[in-house]
């Protein structure tokens, strides 16, 4: 190109093909002649700097944009024209050297990257080309990328913290925690696990979990998902072969990448030992109570026999005072005998084996009522019973239970004849029985105390009895794995409830 007019984009001079291309590029192109004057100014620049080609041609950059005085762009143009050096001006350092504005947001300067390169033209000498690119897109990309990076860094930081926390919780847990695969391979174990099993899981060659808790293999094989999570007692085997009782629950971990399980448990040797000791002492105590009451019966019978004789032979023969003394002794002996009998029964209910069978409750109630015959008649009580279900229980104890509860309802009646209603409700696992009366009732604050041994709420003179009947009821129900409780409204009546398992 020997004449810059070939590129000159004034309306009067037609553009060459090269000029047309430059005119339509999506970047700013300017040519500066050897003296730095604009000899070409494309449409991109004209639109964005708002200086048309006619105004740009023949002027230097500094004349058009005085703010460029002393700028890197000026130096670069100088270097290109005088020394022949090419330069780049990056957006990161210069932001927006030329006052070029966006077409859509007219007040916003375009972020630019500018290249300045010398061109040696045989005719014009050393001229210089300026190309200006809009790097908004790259900038947006970068900002998004940086933000994403930062978010990622934040997330991984909080993830790291959460992991550390989890780790600390697991490491510090008192429970043994083992993570294992479906085939029993142990992936991780905390220090408590190492202590419980006396085995260094982290450094020693791995044995499968089954070697430590054999039952878990079976559990997993049965794949009873709902049962896995339950805490259950198992036999544990320590690294040194010692066997011990342990309590453990197994959970499948809810992660998608791998089928992993955790076993969480603790050594219960100590608890087992104290439970055993407690059971032993309980049994001994029961044995003692039984033996004591049994052995007390013998001398009491002697006393009873001889006071009977004394009464028969000498009543009315000494004096009125002596008769009174003898009466007191006789009553005392009778009461003691009742108490001892009740105690014996109470301890028998606790110690005799429960003989479970399917029992028709209706027939049980009939038997209990017939046992209560005299008291029932005397009181004029009306007992109504809806059809009752069959349960799995010890028949004799069940008769006793109903007899005590119905007997109580008769005993603690008001002046009018007692009305007693017996009902049963079938539940999913248990039957609930209700025995409701219209008697004197109990202050609800005593609702629990009345089931305790020797607890009486009334004077013996008002309502006779040993104070042990409800304790026996409680014991019977508990030995059948049921529960017993009551509700009451003083002066209106009470309702006793108890549950029994539905089947064997």
């Amino acid at each position, binding site marked *: 190109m020997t004449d810059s007019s070939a590129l000159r984009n004034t309306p009067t001079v037609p553009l060459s093909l090269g000029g047309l291309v430059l005119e339509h590029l999506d970047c700013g192109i300017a040519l500066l002649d050897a003296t730095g004057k604009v000899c070409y100014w494309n449409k991109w620049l004209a639109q964005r700097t708002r200086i048309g080609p006619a105004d740009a041609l023949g002027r230097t950059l500094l004349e058009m944009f005085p703010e460029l005085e002393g700028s*890197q762009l000026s*130096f670069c143009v100088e*270097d290109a024209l005088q*020394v*022949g*050096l*090419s*330069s*780049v*001006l*990056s*957006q*990161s*350092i210069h932001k927006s050297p030329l006052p070029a504005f966006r077409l859509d947001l007219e007040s916003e300067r375009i972020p630019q*990257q500018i*290249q300045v*390169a*010398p061109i*040696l033209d045989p005719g014009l000498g*050393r001229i210089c080309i300026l190309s200006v690119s809009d*790097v908004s897109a*790259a*900038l947006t*990309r*970068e900002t998004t*990328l*940086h933000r994403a*990076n*930062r978010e990622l*860094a934040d997330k991984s930081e909080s993830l790291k913290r959460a992991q550390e926390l989890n780790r600390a919780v697991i490491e510090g847990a008192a429970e043994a925690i083992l993570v294992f695969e479906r085939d029993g391979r142990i992936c991780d174990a905390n220090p408590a696990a190492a202590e419980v099993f006396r085995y260094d899981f982290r450094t020693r060659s791995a044995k499968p979990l089954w070697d430590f808790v054999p039952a878990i293999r079976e559990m997993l094989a049965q794949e009873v998902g709902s049962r896995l999570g339950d805490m259950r007692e198992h036999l544990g085997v320590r690294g040194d072969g010692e066997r011990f009782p342990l309590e453990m629950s197994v959970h499948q971990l809810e992660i998608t990448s791998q089928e992993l399980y955790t076993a969480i448990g603790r050594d219960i040797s100590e608890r087992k030992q104290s439970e055993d000791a407690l059971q032993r002492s309980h049994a001994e105590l029961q044995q003692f109570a039984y033996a004591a009451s049994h052995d007390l019966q013998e001398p009491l019978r002697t006393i009873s026999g001889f006071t009977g004789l004394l009464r028969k032979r000498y009543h009315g023969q000494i004096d009125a005072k002596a008769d009174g003394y003898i009466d007191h002794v006789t009553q005392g002996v009778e009461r003691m005998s009742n108490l001892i009998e009740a105690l014996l029964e109470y301890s028998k209910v606790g110690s005799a084996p429960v003989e479970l069978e399917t029992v028709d409750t209706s027939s049980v109630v009939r038997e209990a009522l017939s046992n209560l015959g005299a008291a029932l008649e005397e009181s004029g009580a009306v007992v109504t019973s809806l059809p009752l279900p069959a349960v799995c229980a010890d028949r004799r104890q069940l008769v006793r239970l109903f007899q005590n509860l119905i007997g109580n309802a008769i005993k603690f009646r008001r002046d009018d004849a007692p009305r007693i209603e017996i009902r049963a409700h079938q539940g999913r696992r248990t039957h609930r029985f209700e025995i409701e009366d219209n008697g004197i009732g109990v202050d609800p604050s005593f609702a629990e105390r009345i089931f305790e041994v020797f607890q009486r709420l009334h004077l013996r003179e008002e309502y006779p009895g040993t104070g042990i009947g409800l304790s026996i009821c409680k014991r019977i129900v508990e030995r059948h794995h049921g529960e017993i409780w009551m509700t009451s409204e003083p002066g209106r009546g009470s309702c006793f409830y108890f549950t029994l398992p539905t089947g064997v």
Partner: protein
Amino acid sequence: MFELTAEETDAINEVFNIGMGRAASSLSRLVRSEVGLSIPDLDFLSLSEVQEILAEGSDLSMCAVHERFSGTFGGNALLVFPSVDSLELVKAIFPDTDENQLDSLSELEQEALLEVGNIILNACVGSIANLTGATFSTEIPIFLQGSVEHILTRAQQAKTDEYLFMRMRFRIQVRSMIGYVAFVMDIPSLEAFRDCVRKAFLTDPA
């Protein structure tokens, strides 16, 4: 092997030192902070020697700014940074950069580094032109990233090319970086270069 006399070496050193002075002041203006640039040593080396020095102590990837120049004599100018130093340099130029998130250069950061390299290489070429009267034209620089071998291959035209090799020390605020400047030229170009230096500095004015 191309060799220079002690006087020629001194003269070339002087040319580059003046160039570095100019580059430092340009960079200081850009980063609004004092920039120190120095050339502790300058040597003529073969490709394998250059490779050895660049690969020394690390096989990490390198960043480079590559610029072709032509004129009185021609060749390729390279400014090479180990990646670690290039990151340091970017941090020095942009003090607000988040220290944690940088492990590679983003597009715009590469561009910034390209400009810094361009300024340094132009200062060298410009200094030769100013002081020796040689005339040059440089092409728009490009940014290269990759292994030492990849970068050198891009800048080399023939196996027999010689390297005028300089190690540079950058100091911006508290940060300090090492970079390398290499002028890759064939023997005729080197000879032309030497002639220019001789003419400008070593001819007896009488």
